[in-house]
């Protein structure tokens, strides 16, 4: 999804530091300090996890850390709410399947 560079009310989006991070093995770019979920959205990632029972995709839903639908495995730790966790350079972000990083059959 497109980032908003200029907004009629909020004006120009302040420049921030670009960092790279890995997402399921691919290298992606994002801005330091923005929520991981924002960087993923900018890269077109919609599904953050697949549920434990029915293996359905989930993504951003509330964007403020309440619904926990956007959780992923970040630096090896599962259940990280990506909508409120700031992006750092070199982070390793993985799709979460149930609570693990590998899809189950």
């Amino acid at each position, binding site marked *: 999804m497109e980032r908003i560079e200029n907004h009629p009310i909020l004006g120009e989006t302040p420049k921030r530091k670009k960092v790279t991070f890995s997402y399921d093995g691919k290298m992606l770019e994002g801005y330091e300090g923005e929520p991981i979920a924002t960087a993923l959205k900018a890269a077109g990632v919609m599904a953050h996890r697949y549920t*434990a029972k029915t293996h359905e995709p989930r993504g951003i839903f509330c964007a403020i850390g309440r619904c926990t639908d956007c959780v992923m495995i970040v630096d090896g*730790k599962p*259940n990280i709410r990506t909508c409120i966790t700031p992006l750092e350079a070199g982070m390793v972000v993985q799709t979460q399947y149930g*609570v693990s990083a590998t899809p189950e059959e």
Partner: protein
Amino acid sequence: MSNVADVVIIGGGINGCAAAYYLAKGGTKSVIVLEASNSIGHGGSSRNGGGVRQSGRDIRELPYAMYGIKNMWPTLSEELGVDTEYTQKGNLRMGKTPEHIKKLEALTKSANSVGLDVRMIDQKEVKEICPYLSDEVIGASWCPTDGHANPLTTTLGYYKRALEMGVKFYTEAPVKSLQKVKGKVRKVILNDGTIFEGETIILVSGYESRAIARTIGVDVPMTRLIDECLVTEMQPHMIDVMFGCASADFYGHQTKHGSFVFGSDSGWETVDEMVDPSTNIPDPSKLITNSMTLSASCRAIQGYIPALKDAKIVRSWCGWLDESFDGVPFLSRVDEAPGLILACGFTGHGFGTAPVVGLMLSQMVQGEETVVDISALQYNRFKPCR
């Protein structure tokens, strides 16, 4: 609405629900269960760590605990039509000091004397059973036939089945007093004045049993103690065993769902008092957790299972346990109150024995011999100290 029944059970916890189910199954025509709160299993039944174990118990409890594990738990899910999540993968009671080990050895010895398969294992074997444990654990007692289950679904499973078999349940029905008719306990009077009558009255209301029994002149020697539980978010499958420790720091297990459920305390429980904050008057129904327990519990758990340090706690809760004078339940008829059966004082470990206790209660009502001898659980077993 008919308020008269063969049996009136006071208390809609797991023991009350199980008794109701086995009574109905055994052919008792009319059974009524009265629950004071608005939900079934509101007390200890939904506030425990889910242990289904024999090890660590007083030898007076072992015969029936063993009976339940051998004959009832394995088929319970099928019988109740719910997933009780019963898992029989052993109980590890851990020790960190020579004193702990000594204590565990004594428990093990007494359990062996009544035929329980429990033995002491060293650190190496502990680690083989559970590689996630801290090196501070130097040994443990190991009972391979112990396990755990889900107290919530098990309780509601009994309730559901009993309902299906026609047992009448009333919630929000707090009992104020009992009353004898012609020398026999018969009437159960609610706070709102409603009267129920039963040929037999089973009093299975946790600590509240004491106040209710007192209304017909029976005092049951027990106290009340708060205990807290907590649950983590879902974790990858790690551990099947039930945990306990010699120091009673914590107990718990990983559930089928993946979350870990633990019970623990802060050490302040004996002076903890539940107060209605609006009036500042003590009110045990206000189940407010203590601000220190959550962290104390986490310290205890991390001390044994460091691998869980990043697991997040999603919820904590607390409940009262009805602690009998000698830590062993009361399960008996009462000489001076014919018609009354007492089932209380489970002292925080009544969940694992609930199926067999329910069964034996039904047998007591129906005039059958109980599956094991429970004469050691008489309410009047205490003698003066000199």
